[in-house]
């Protein structure tokens, strides 16, 4: 399962790409298989964390009344998340959560963007572990917020018992419990993971498919150009998916927190 990743340079690109292609050789020790400590994904995650911290520190170190270009950029990102996600979804209380959503949005956006940045070209989010942890953070947060706002008993009563006739409740309570406490974090994680996974797989199919046709025979060789043009087009589609998924992840987290804070069902 943890086979060596495809090596284009050596001319041994195996055509149908498989799940093995997501398990890259480690950086330390160089080229080792199955070494979990320092891989390309480790590097990308720390890089994303570092870049975000430095970016926001540098742009907001010395805020001016008339913003500089960098400050304007950082402020528009924060402003977008605060106004168009937090406040739109949660209402005026949403301002409290804007820092979390901004961090989440930027982190997911940047780690997703590694999928199409040259030389990285794979997103850490194409492994379920990273989206799963992000989903767990949002899950813990919305439950914690709900419990703190309503109190333990009232929060669960609120979340589990919809206003419905008593005889339908035995059916509704398990459905509500399942959808709120199991499906929500699961779908949050799987959505991001599967999007990045499928995106990477799609790019692999068209890139490696080009090589496969080039090596197949003289008649198929020119068609490989079509395959690579498709790769370029799909990279643009991937760029759209990257931004969209970062947005969707943040909006859904916001909508779960809104649900936890809501007064009536």
């Amino acid at each position, binding site marked *: 399962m943890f086979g060596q990743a495809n090596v284009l340079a050596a001319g041994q690109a195996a055509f149908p790409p498989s799940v093995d292609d997501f398990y890259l050789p480690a950086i330390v020790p160089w080229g080792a298989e199955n070494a979990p400590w320092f891989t390309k994904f480790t590097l990308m995650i720390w890089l994303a964390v570092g870049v975000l911290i430095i970016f926001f520190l540098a742009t907001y170190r010395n805020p001016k009344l008339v913003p500089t270009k960098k400050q304007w950029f950082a402020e528009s990102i924060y402003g977008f998340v605060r106004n168009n996600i937090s406040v739109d979804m949660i209402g005026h209380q949403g301002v409290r959560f804007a820092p979390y959503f901004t961090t989440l949005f930027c982190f997911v956006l940047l780690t997703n963007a590694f999928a199409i940045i040259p030389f990285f070209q794979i997103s850490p989010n194409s492994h379920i572990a990273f989206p799963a942890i992000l989903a767990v953070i949002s899950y813990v947060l919305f439950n914690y917020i709900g419990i703190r706002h309503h109190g333990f008993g009232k929060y669960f009563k609120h979340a589990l018992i919809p206003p419905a006739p008593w005889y339908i409740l035995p059916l509704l309570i398990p459905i509500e419990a399942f959808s709120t406490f199991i499906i929500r974090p699961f779908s949050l994680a799987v959505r991001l993971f599967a*999007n990045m996974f499928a995106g990477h797989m799609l790019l692999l199919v068209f890139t490696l498919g080009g090589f496969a046709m080039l090596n197949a025979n003289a008649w198929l060789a020119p068609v490989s150009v079509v395959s690579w043009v498709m790769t370029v087009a799909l990279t643009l589609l991937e760029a759209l998916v990257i931004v969209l998924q970062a947005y*969707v992840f943040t909006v859904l987290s916001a*909508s779960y927190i809104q649900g936890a804070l809501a007064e009536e069902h």
Partner: protein
Amino acid sequence: MDYVAAVEGSTAAIGYGLAAIGPGIGVGLVFAAYIQSTARQPESSRMTLPYVWIGFAVIEALALFGIAFGFIWAG
């Protein structure tokens, strides 16, 4: 028994093709409704947009489960 013709590969591909029909229709309905509501009431377009993305994401999740489980159960 002799085979006249045979198909190789994973049946998961067929399964995923079938699994994508429902979400495909669903996502189409979401955006159709959004376009229609915006055409009728252009100033509501910003108000309804977050709901479009939530609806889209919830429906799209089914198609994406299809991809993930296709690989898990391809075995």
